[in-house]
């Protein structure tokens, strides 16, 4: 040992300065350029730089990073199929790389492949139980598949980490609505609205109020200019139906006529006018309105409902 040490001291001055210091200098990141390009959003250049041949020069963690960069770059340039290919290969080669697993899970989730994305998110949660992105992914997947209680649990975990995201609060409120937990849904929706006055949230609150039995409040929310600017006729015809539920027949007729000014063949407007006519004992007028719900929508529920209703009228 002493001999080696002496040899190094003696040989040290004779070696070129650069070579001797390379032993102790930090290694250069082989993906430094790609990292920089990626961070600057120059995805096409990342793809060009990480051509397939380039992959053979990387090993271990660097190879996993290369898969991540190229996958993300393809994803951001809308080549989702290619991104999926790189992620899948990356995850197969590096099953413990959570960045790749998360990227693949998110892409699968966006593609609607819920059952494929779910185990990946779960894997991330096993390693990092508080990972907000994995909780969010699972919350959305569970909501879509009908596992509402599980979805609520994952939304709550997400909101602990990201309490200021209006969309997440809104989506959470919608799941609570489906679970018919209207008070909690209202709280979540109002929280979302406070963070971002989105007409979608106003619409959610209108539904919550109606389901709670506060039809007056629900109807006044449908009149909000913010909501009307987004939904237009859709909000108006919803209002017509809700006015019928509230026995405000005259107002429902006016609303249906407003809808018809914009969309003359609107089937819901015909439905509202038919029900209003029935309410006033005008059976032939009701039949005429129901008959106007067009045949072109033969397979639609509205058409089938109108036909079934027409058949039911003569019974009374």
């Amino acid at each position, binding site marked *: 040992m002493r001999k080696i040490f002496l040899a190094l001291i003696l040989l040290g001055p004779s070696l070129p300065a650069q070579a001797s210091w390379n032993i102790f200098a930090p290694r250069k990141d082989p993906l430094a350029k790609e990292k920089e390009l990626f961070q600057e959003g120059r995805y096409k250049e990342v793809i060009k730089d990480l051509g397939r041949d380039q992959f053979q020069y990387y090993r271990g*963690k660097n190879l*996993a990073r290369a898969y991540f960069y190229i996958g993300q770059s393809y994803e951001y340039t809308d080549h989702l199929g290619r991104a999926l290919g790189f992620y899948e290969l990356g995850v197969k080669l590096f099953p*413990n*790389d*959570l*960045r790749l697993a*998360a990227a693949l899970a*998110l892409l699968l*989730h*966006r593609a*609607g492949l*819920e059952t494929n994305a779910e185990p990946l998110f779960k894997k*991330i949660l096993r*390693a*990092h139980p508080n*990972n*907000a*992105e994995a909780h969010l992914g699972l919350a*959305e997947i569970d*909501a*879509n*598949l*009908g*596992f*509402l209680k599980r979805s609520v649990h994952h939304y709550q975990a*997400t909101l602990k980490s*990201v309490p200021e*995201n209006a*969309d*997440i609060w809104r*989506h959470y409120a*919608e799941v609570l609505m*489906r*679970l*018919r937990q209207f008070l909690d849904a209202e709280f979540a929706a109002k929280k979302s609205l406070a963070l971002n006055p989105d007409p*979608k949230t106003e*619409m959610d609150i209108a539904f919550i109020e109606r389901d709670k039995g506060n039809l007056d409040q629900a109807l006044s929310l449908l009149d909000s200019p913010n909501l009307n600017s987004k*939904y237009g006729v*859709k909000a108006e*015809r*919803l209002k017509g*139906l*809700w006015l019928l*539920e509230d026995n405000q027949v005259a107002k429902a007729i006016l609303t249906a006529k407003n809808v018809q000014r914009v969309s003359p063949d*609107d*089937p*819901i407007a015909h*439905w509202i006018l038919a*029900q209003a006519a*029935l309410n006033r004992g005008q059976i032939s007028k009701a039949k005429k309105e129901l008959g106007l719900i067009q045949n072109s929508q033969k397979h*639609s*529920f*509205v058409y*089938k*409902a109108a036909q*079934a*209703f027409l*058949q*039911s009228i003569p019974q*009374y």
Partner: protein
Amino acid sequence: MKQFPRPLSKILWLLIILFWPPRIHAEMDLSANAVLRDHLWKDISAKPKGQRPTIGLVLSAGGTRASAHIGVISILKESGFPIDVVAGTSMGAIIGSLYADGKSPDELRKLSLKMGAATGSNINPWTLIEYLFAQKLFSSKKLERFIKKELKDKRFEQLQKPFACVAMDINSGEAIIFREGRVAPAVRASMNLPGIFKPVEYRHRYLVDGAIVDYVPVDAAKLLGAQWILASVTEDDFTRARPDSVLSSMQQVIDIRGAVILDTQKKAANFLIEPAVGNVPSAGGTTLYMTPTPWIIDQGKLAANRFLHKAEQSYILFSMPAIAKGYL
């Protein structure tokens, strides 16, 4: 211990969450079909029983597969889908009786997951030797005890919802529909696999599993007064099955026999929910236990969630005379 690479930093995760493009979150459907369905469903489902067509929930046979009914019940309950009467055969009878008694889907889930040991009855090395060498059948008494305990030995009339279950008289081949008397022996008879368990002697009849003659007991639900019937069917895809045990072979024969009349029964129902469990064997492997798993229950949830709105539409169309009556 597995070493995972360092995850993305917290800030990067937050950035991803904040700026990630919208994902597959189902936005509220405000199409004409959706808003009319919602409007009419609110109207008809709020009407008390008697002012709208009576809804019957029919739970098919299917051994382990039939535990998917719990998932179906869970979705119906969460969405507020009213169920007025319940009918079931075999495993459907067990789940149906517990549901008719007011057990919540969570309770049903917990009970079903421990049901494996309860259904096996008096199986022990000695009875097994007797079964193999003296062809002596097992007894399903243990199942009766399980139901008796859970239902506190109630009679049909004492259950929260009207309930019926079906068994077969092994002497006449008749389907016997039970809707009065003590529930536990009737459910036991409905689940009493022939060839494995001794026929149950009850009300002067020798009874075995009802799946042979009434796999989807729509007729039983109609006897209870159901007008619109939602059937949860957990049919065996026996074309691909390779039974590898006595029980699974027996169960497969029952399923094939049941399938002969299944098509007619399915047509008699107004709406079908068919969880994708056809590839699940009726009984678990080489054991005599029927052990439901969370996966099977989840399949029921998936199927019911997928077809819930269609079921609502079907009931609305069926109920249109009752809806029209409200408007006139």
